[in-house]
């Protein structure tokens, strides 16, 4: 996937003009949010459940190296093979080498955000191994060469006409139907054939359990279960923050992630692997590989504040509650992770310079923070990244802000701490500001505020400010 995080404003503008995107965004996010709220409401104490989710993830992160070691020890004792990858290249290379070794022509894939991050599919295809995404939305997005629109519905915004045309072209759809269900069934038949003969499957990991050496996946379609049942070789890729201490903790996270994702009490399938198949089993993998991926997370981990972003369980609730995401949709964010989740993760993985607009494109309204089941304070992280960006901190791969901006805020803060200078500044700015005022209102003015004036007026700066009114009038009336 091409990384386009530098193009946020441009991509957002395009999406704001896209009729189909607007139509979709007017309806679906509100429905998804309502389902999420209803799902949480059937817990005996929703806010305690969320506080518990935050504690579980924070505790797991606090013990991360210890839990990863425990997971590896138990997974290995169970017969899994654990491979550690520093970055995207090492992870992809391992999987490619394994596929080549096994002589596989293609792999089936369950949805895995971390492999979108590492661009695994592209690497495998480059080396002659076909990759079939099997989650219906991921399959459509893959065939259209698009990033995911939403973490749960990667192609949920794609109009049905486009899906039909795609299926005619790519899967030999005979009946040109516009019925989403018939189209789904056509994809089912096509992908069923892939599951039937697959020799190696690749999945992600929703939760890894240290105490038992178990990996857990949640899904509604069954494509992950197929990918774990049918081939003799299974590779499950996990980003290293996905581990929790115990099964008990994992079950709580499953209750939370399913409700926050789709409003379900539990997803249709939850599959828990604690090793390859036993000798006398007839299906399931003979060999089960776990790839633990760092790709910048150990660095994020070392920052006490940014570390909280690693609590994320990829439920996607922040997307459908974000007023910005609900205007522009997922494509604008330019990478695997969109919405507030992407706005806290992408800057840390890709660096602050490449993602400057992402952590600034927020009104800090706090909807994400209030809905997050693991207590991530997204607005606080945005402010943190902005501050690091201003400092030009090389640890965060940021560079200095424009000279004019720096000068402006130096002047602003000096004036705001120096009343006579503030008052003088106001007196000087007023005639400039009010030059084209009409009827006490300004609809245009020279300077850096053109964005505001495109669609809005502003009151003319008051001839007598509140300061003046108090001094001259209000003070004595008391």
């Amino acid at each position, binding site marked *: 996937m091409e990384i386009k995080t530098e193009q946020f*404003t441009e991509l*957002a*503008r395009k999406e*704001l003009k896209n009729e189909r995107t607007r139509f979709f965004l007017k309806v679906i996010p509100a429905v998804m949010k309502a389902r999420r709220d209803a799902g949480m409401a059937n817990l005996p104490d929703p806010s305690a459940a969320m506080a518990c989710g935050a504690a579980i993830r924070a505790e797991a992160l606090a013990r991360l190296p210890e839990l990863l070691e425990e997971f590896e020890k138990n997974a290995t004792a169970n017969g899994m093979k654990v491979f550690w990858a520093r970055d995207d290249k090492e992870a992809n290379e391992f999987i490619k080498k394994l596929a080549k070794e096994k002589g596989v022509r293609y792999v089936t894939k369950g949805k895995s955000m971390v492999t979108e991050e590492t661009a695994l599919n592209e690497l495998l295809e480059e080396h002659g191994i076909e990759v079939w995404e099997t989650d219906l939305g991921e399959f459509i997005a893959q065939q259209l060469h698009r990033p995911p629109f939403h973490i749960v519905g990667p192609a949920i915004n794609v109009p049905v006409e486009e899906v039909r045309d795609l299926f005619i072209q790519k899967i030999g759809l005979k009946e040109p139907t516009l019925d989403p269900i018939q189209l789904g069934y056509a994809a089912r038949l096509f992908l069923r054939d892939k599951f039937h003969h697959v020799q190696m499957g690749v999945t992600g990991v929703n939760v890894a359990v240290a105490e038992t050496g178990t990996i857990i996946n949640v899904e509604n379609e069954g494509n992950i279960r197929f990918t774990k049942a049918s081939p003799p070789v299974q590779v499950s890729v996990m980003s290293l923050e996905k581990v929790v201490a115990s099964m008990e903790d994992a079950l709580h996270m499953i209750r939370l992630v399913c409700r926050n994702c789709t409003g379900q009490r539990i997803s249709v399938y939850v599959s828990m692997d604690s090793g390859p198949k036993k000798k006398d089993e007839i299906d399931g993998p003979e060999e089960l590989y776990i790839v633990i991926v760092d790709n910048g997370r150990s660095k994020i981990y070392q920052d006490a504040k940014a570390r909280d972003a690693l609590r994320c369980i990829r439920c996607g609730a922040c997307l459908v509650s974000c*007023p*910005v995401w609900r*205007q522009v949709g997922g494509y604008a964010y330019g990478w695997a992770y969109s919405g507030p989740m992407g706005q806290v993760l992408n800057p840390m993985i890709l660096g602050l310079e490449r993602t400057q*607009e992402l952590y*600034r*494109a*927020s*009104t*800090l*309204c*706090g*909807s994400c*923070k*209030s809905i997050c089941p693991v207590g991530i304070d997204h607005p606080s992280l945005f402010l943190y*990244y*902005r*501050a*690091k960006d*201003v400092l030009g901190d090389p640890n965060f791969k940021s560079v200095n*802000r424009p000279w004019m*901006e720096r000068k402006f*805020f*130096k002047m*602003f*803060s*000096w004036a*705001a*701490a120096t*009343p006579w200078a*503030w008052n003088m500044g*106001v007196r000087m700015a007023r005639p400039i500001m009010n030059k084209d*005022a009409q*009827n*006490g*209102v300004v609809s245009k003015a020279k300077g*850096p*505020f*053109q*964005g*505001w004036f495109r*669609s*809005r*007026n*502003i*009151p*003319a*700066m*008051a001839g*007598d*400010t*509140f300061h003046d*009114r*108090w001094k001259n009038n*209000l*003070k004595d009336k*008391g």
Partner: protein
Amino acid sequence: MKEVSLFIPCTVDLFAPRIGEAVVNLLRRVGANPIYHEEQTCCGQPAMNAGYREEAKKVAKHFITVFEKDPVIVSPAGSCVCMVKDHYPEILEDEPDWFRRAKDLAPRVYEFSQYLVDVLKVEDVGASFEGKVTYHESCHILRGLGVSEQPKKLIRAVKGAQLIPLDNADSCCGFGGEFANDFPDISESMVKDKVESFLTSGADLLVLNEPGCFLNIGGYLNRNHPGKRIMHLASFLATNGREAEYGN
């Protein structure tokens, strides 16, 4: 008489001083004694939001020096109250003396409707207005301060006023300070949706108690729907909904 120190944000001071006047008027009406430190300027939020923490610290220190002797400080702006309560201690964490002073100040700062209802225990300020009113829940007031019932209680107590629901009342209006100017396409789309909710609500008047939202939604209405009325809660209560138009 209860002395109340006024914290009038720069947005009100410069662009909507009538809101400040309304706050003074109402506080006197309910028996409080507002005082105003003329050395106040701004809370520093613009610098904070842009990532200029060192600069925001300078402003914070000035603010603390101006206000720290006051037992009670009241402001008609929730985002500024949040800046003082939540962010001042955060940015001054590495200077123990200032940190202590910021933490000491925080509990004494109130948003205006919160102060009237929770502290003064006043809901009826003697206002009247014949008509339908709807209320926009500003982000910092609702999610930052947990204040939502208080403004509505004040509105419901207005004789003749009918408080009706606003669709997506708690959706951000698209102001966000610098955001409105830096991401104008998205901001415009957000304020347009907010205005549509207002226009389809059947209300005669949109009331809110955050100056930023007032300037933003009001600015869009003034440009595109000139007849439609919007007021800050303080102005609504102080003038029985009869305040003059958006401009100065």
